[in-house]
């Protein structure tokens, strides 16, 4: 029953890690990730975990009680094999984006690099339905799957010291949205006025969560507060 493509190990005193990255390319990254969300959801029903954190084709489980580590190391692989990745999908969140000008200072450079019109960059960026694979880097920051491969753009050689909250950027083969002002090296193509942080809702303090879908809608004007 052991599958040599899966790796399970302990991290520190109370965490265990399931690494599924070697299942790619036999399975797509999105398919692997879908099964990880399903496993995460199953595990969240047990009250033994402090935190259950998906990464890129891996899952880390933080236990309250270190005496349970051995047990979970022995069963997590079996639980993985019971997942199908079916019927796991979150809601679709629409994000209005004002592309270009001072809101997307790198839009022209991205278009030139790929020998496309800026309108074609916008069309290709706003066409797909993206999937939130996992969150990290800063609170509410989504790692999105689904960027058109024609738009793959390297990061800036010198990162900006401050990027305004709501900026939409491309970094390598990823696209994402900055939830708060932060330094960063992604190429900025637009900005949204939707807040990705909802601290007034302590149970759901971020707009997005793993498994959610995202659609970017180009708009011609947006009101920005502050």
């Amino acid at each position: 029953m052991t599958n040599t493509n899966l790796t399970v190990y302990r991290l520190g005193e109370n965490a265990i890690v399931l690494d599924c990255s070697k299942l790619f390319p036999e399975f797509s990254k999105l398919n692997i990730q879908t099964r990880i969300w399903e496993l995460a959801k199953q595990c969240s029903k047990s009250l033994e975990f402090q935190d259950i954190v998906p990464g890129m084709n891996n899952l880390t489980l933080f236990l309250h009680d270190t005496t349970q580590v051995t047990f979970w190391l022995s069963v997590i692989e079996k639980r993985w094999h019971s997942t199908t990745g079916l019927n796991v999908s979150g809601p679709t969140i629409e994000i209005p984006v004002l592309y270009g000008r001072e809101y997307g200072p790198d839009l022209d450079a991205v278009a030139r690099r790929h020998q496309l019109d800026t309108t074609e960059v916008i069309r290709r960026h706003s066409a797909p339905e993206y999937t939130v694979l996992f969150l990290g880097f800063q609170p509410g920051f989504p790692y999105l799957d689904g960027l058109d491969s024609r738009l793959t753009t390297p990061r800036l050689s010198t990162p900006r010291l401050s990027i305004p909250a709501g900026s939409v950027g491309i970094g390598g083969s990823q696209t994402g949205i900055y939830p708060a002002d932060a330094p960063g090296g992604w190429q900025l193509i637009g900005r949204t006025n939707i807040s990705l942080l909802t601290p007034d809702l302590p149970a759901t303090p971020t707009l997005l969560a793993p498994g959610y879908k995202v659609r970017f809608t180009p708009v011609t004007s947006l009101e920005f507060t502050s």
Partner: protein
Amino acid sequence: MITSQESSTNRQQPLANDAIIKVITPGLFSSVQGLGLSGYRHLGIPFGGALDRQALILGNRVLGNPDSTPALELTSGQVELKFTRDAWFVLTGAQYRIAIDGRDIWHSWRNKIKAGEILTLRGPKSAMRAYLAVDGGIQPTQQNTTLQITKQLAKGDCLRLGSALSIAKPIGAVQRGYSNEIRALPGPEMSLFTPQSRKAFWSNAWQLTNDSNRMGARLAGEILSLTKPQELNSHAVMPGVVQVPPSGQPIVLLADAQTTGGYPKMATVIEADLWKVAQTRPGSTVRFIHVSPGQADDANYEWQQYFYRLQRAIDA
């Protein structure tokens, strides 16, 4: 985990009207910290909380507050605070010079300050971070609590206090001794490093650099190298993880570290010793001691015994 009297979420307590601390001089990198927040790391929200968890718990125990009650974390410089209600307070962690309206007060003893008086804290004389706990606790804002965002204290800030507790007399607590020997478990990517780098990690002294902060303690020493270049997928990390970025200079992740990372993990500092990293001053060195998970459990048990004995003494 270090034992806690209740869940690690910051507890909201009833507010006494107008009970505040007014910040006259904020010091450098001062902030309000509790014991952090779990359950939200899949949303990118860091654990947060006090860097020296045990010092915060000690301060709260001395006052009779719940363990996770937020307190003021001080990093350096002079801090001046004016209280608008009578309050019992205690300073734990790094050694500071403490004075009420110019009158010197002992460190790690609980003392009373009267409404209108000014508390002056100067330091640290040794170590790095001190915790000012107040009876009833200091209230962080909801946004900072929910997102575990560290907001540095600024001149003119008003920190709201919880309800006063009834305390009769000063008592003091014995603080544990600092050493620069940091016990750690080997990390999952340790085998990816060259034998020479692995040996250097465990046997050399590592100097803490000036660009260390609440996200991580950055160390300088021999360049650590991988046997071959390695790309890792982003994965969850946590406070205590020792990452090695391409510079070859290790970083010990601390409370405000981001929730995911992609660098190889050489080791994980055990929970019982992470406070020592937070109490190391830039320019000083640390050494890593290789331990087993069983030894990590024993070290946590020693902390439990320390707090058990402390509680017995307070209750006596």
